[in-house]
């Protein structure tokens, strides 16, 4: 009985993790500019990896290895926002203007614009 509940929980965690990873991938394709893509590329992914790791920890049970997955999660939580920030900051230094609702420029236009400004 307990084993069944655990298996269901593990599968549930992995599925939720997969869902958020999928959303993250969809966001990278659908969102309009580099800033909004940086949001989803690293953040939705954090939760995707988080749920997947929670599933792994549960599958391993109460062993030292599952502590290591918690540590992994901790490192993802520190490094992922750092990467997102680095991308956004680099874009800002290139002079790329963020996309807003009232324009219909594409990524290529935004980059082009930043290059001709200089």
């Amino acid at each position, binding site marked *: 009985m307990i084993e069944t509940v655990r298996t269901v929980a593990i599968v549930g965690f992995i599925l939720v993790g997969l*869902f*958020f990873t999928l*959303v993250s991938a*969809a*966001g990278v394709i*659908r*969102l*309009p*500019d580099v*800033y*909004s893509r*940086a*949001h*989803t590329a*690293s*953040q*939705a992914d*954090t*939760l995707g990896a988080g749920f997947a790791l929670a599933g792994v920890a549960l599958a391993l049970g109460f062993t*030292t290895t599952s*502590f*290591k997955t918690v*540590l992994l999660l901790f490192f993802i*939580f*520190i490094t*992922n*926002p*750092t990467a*997102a*920030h680095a991308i*956004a*900051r680099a*874009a*800002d230094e290139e002079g790329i*203007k*963020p*996309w*807003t*609702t009232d324009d219909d420029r594409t990524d290529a236009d935004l980059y082009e614009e930043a290059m001709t400004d200089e």
Partner: protein
Amino acid sequence: MSDNRVLVPLSASSTNRQTIEYVVRTALEGGPATLRLVYVHPPEIQADDQTARGQAVDDLLKRASVWAEEDSKQFEATLTVETAQLGMDKYLFSPSDIAETIARDAIETDTDRVVFDPRYDPGIGAPLLRPLEYELTRFDGFTVEEAPSGRQTRRTPFLARTSLPQIGAIFVISFAFYQILAADPTYWFEIVTGVVSAAIVAIGLSQVTFTRNPTWQTPARLVRHTIYIPYLLKEIIKSNILVAAVILHPKLPIEPRMTRVRPAVWGSLPMTALANSITLTPGTLTVRIDGRTLTVHTLVPAAREGLFAGDLERAIRFVFYGRDAAKITSPEDRGEAELIDSTDEPSSWEGDDGGADK
């Protein structure tokens, strides 16, 4: 202006004497000169050690002026010495902040040359002379150089002062980490190898890890962190669902805007924690930190409202300063949050707090 002006940023350094001598000699060869000695205040001055530090800064500047006057006697041209202290009213966070403060002072006083001591340390954690010189080259109107030191200095980048409590703290952390990685923490072999590796790590890395001693507040902060982490997790999951719904919505109802907030958070560690938490929460992304001002890209209105309501900011204040500090009003009520169109735009609370305008 007939005389040439030289600006020298000073810090407590063993080569100050040689630097002053070099500057006075090179400046007076070309006629009368004005020497401006400045001290740039590092961040994180606690209220209680302000007077002691102020005294030390006064002494440093006074000593340097006396040296300069002594050295100028062997030249015919006259030397005027003036001193100044910068950055007392600001929070200088990175080499670029310090470079901007120095550059602004240099431009205001019509300075031609900025000369650094080879061991200049602005006190922001580690000696950062190279990045500082690089940042200063972005400004026009003066030249930047490094004074040659009399004796061959051994360059020791990234090494700050260390102390026993710092070494002890690193030892405890690395020992605990080793035991987590070890298969069986009760086995004597793991304990012995753990002690040896933790000792090597503590001694080897103590100079690059912490810049301040742990205080009695540190354990309290750690305890408050354990309350903060579940709170942050809840926030992350909540806004993740929100953003996921927006991304999967067929019409993609996003309204991205760049915003700027000035959170009531001081110090590099609380600021880093806040910026990291903001980025970790989907819908908000920290693009830039200038002093206390955060430039944040927001994806949806709901995330923007959350940012302006300052919930995370309040939680960070709770972690680092205790429950009383959590009561400060939201950035929106303080008038320290705004929407911007371009990151070059000056902020409405600008005053003298850095920024691209001038």
